[in-house]
């Protein structure tokens, strides 16, 4: 299956699809968890490009702010009004999730090309991308609770802490499912 996956990703169009999806998803994810922010007031711009690392970064590196959200240990100013909060575990998480999302979308594109609508499950495979985006937390509560005005129950609070692993699982299953479908289709085509 790995061979099949690489053979698809080595094709330029699928690779680009995966790459663009990866970048877009990583940006959305970092924005959703509050690690990529825009400030609107020019006077707050501290620098066009600068990196600030906290002196006690080692103490904070793996400190959790909420489930699967870790302390930022530094700040990158990307232009006058864009800040990227540096949290190594969250950047790794973003990369893993982004890769899975990118590959899933590339595979959906591939199956769509080969089999048309019956093979494309783009929308379905995107479902797994949602939980991490709503897993962000503000000070006391999950961001999603604030955004849609939910009343938070103990059950929801517990479920919330499983959003990221749930997403990883969904994306991984989706990936396997897509590859199996392509494999079967390839086999069927060869027989015919």
């Amino acid at each position, binding site marked *: 299956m790995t061979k099949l996956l690489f053979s698809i990703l080595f094709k330029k169009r699928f690779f680009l699809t995966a790459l663009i999806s990866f970048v877009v998803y990583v940006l959305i994810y970092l924005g959703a968890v*509050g690690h990529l*922010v825009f*400030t*609107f*007031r020019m*006077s*707050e711009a501290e620098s066009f490009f600068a990196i*600030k690392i*906290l002196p*006690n970064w080692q103490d*904070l590196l793996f400190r*959790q*702010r*909420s*489930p699967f959200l870790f*302390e*930022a*240990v*530094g*700040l990158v100013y990307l232009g006058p009004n864009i*800040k990227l*909060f*540096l949290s190594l575990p969250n950047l790794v998480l973003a990369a893993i999730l982004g890769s899975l999302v990118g590959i899933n979308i590339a595979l959906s594109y591939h199956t769509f090309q080969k089999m048309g609508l019956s093979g494309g499950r783009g929308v379905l495979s995107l479902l797994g991308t949602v939980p991490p985006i709503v897993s962000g*937390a*503000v*000070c*006391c*509560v*999950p*961001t999603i*609770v*604030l955004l849609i*005005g*939910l*009343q*938070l129950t*103990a059950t929801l*609070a517990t479920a*919330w*802490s499983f959003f990221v692993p749930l997403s990883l699982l969904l994306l991984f299953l989706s990936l396997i499912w897509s590859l199996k479908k392509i494999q079967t289709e390839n086999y069927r085509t060869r027989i015919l």
Partner: protein
Amino acid sequence: MNRSSRPSEISQEVIDTLQNTAPSISKNEDEFLRLLEQNAVSGGPPKDGIPAIEKPEYVTASDADEWLLPNDIVFGVDYSGFVAAYPQRILVWHEIANETINREKVSITYCPLTGTAIGFKGTIGEDVSSTFGVSGKLVNSNLIMYDRSSDSYWPQVLGRAINGAAYGRELEEFPIVWTTWERWKKKYPNTKVLSRETGFVRNYSENGDPYGSYTKDEKGYYASDSIIFRPINEDKRLPAKTVVVGIRDKEGNAVAILKNSLRKQKTIETKLGEKTIVVTYDPDLDFHQAIIKDVRERINSFDAMWFAWIAFYPDTRLIQ
């Protein structure tokens, strides 16, 4: 309530001291405190997931002018010769700033979900003084602090321990002024201001408050009627987020004054149990001061969202 990680500085001696000098608590009080403990829920972040500011650094007013807006909310402290402003946009991310004033431990606390800013002295028992951290739990949407000497839990609005070795004890308070940067600076031009160098990186910018905004028009959580965590007691006489001036005493008497009414009337004289209190509005700071009339002694008064106040003090008298 699960209290998994106990702070390392807890000593058995402190626990024994607190337990041996435990205050007497009436049956009703006991039931209420236990009810609060049973209704404490996780807000999501773990203990200290919201980090208190342990060693606050300060900047001058003119330095703060570079990034604070005139109508930004600040929590002003004028206590024992110590004058400082704590910007809401910083404290919204930390909820507690532990400070030492004249060798006395104090904590400046703010709960965004209930709109309450209260100053506490660190004395939790005889010869036991402590700093506080954020437990990650909430009751009636209100911040539950924990003390680092006994790991007891203290809902901020109540200022009283609902479990642990300090169970039933009350914290002494000092006034915190909820006002704007412009007003505070005008009254205290030499004030110092909590620095953005907190030891953590957060979005302390103008639009950084994740709950909404108090500047210009209220937005987000502050403007909506929705309450995230169901309170123990509800009372629909006022919209949930209406700001009231809350005053309570150690006997459990409580009164809530509609802040807009106080703004209009300037002075309100009312009863708090047997005592007569006089609440005076200060137009310069848009804040208030409450005095027990007979003894001319100040009693703490603070702004609170109505739903939170009534949840903790269901028998409160409301003055509209």
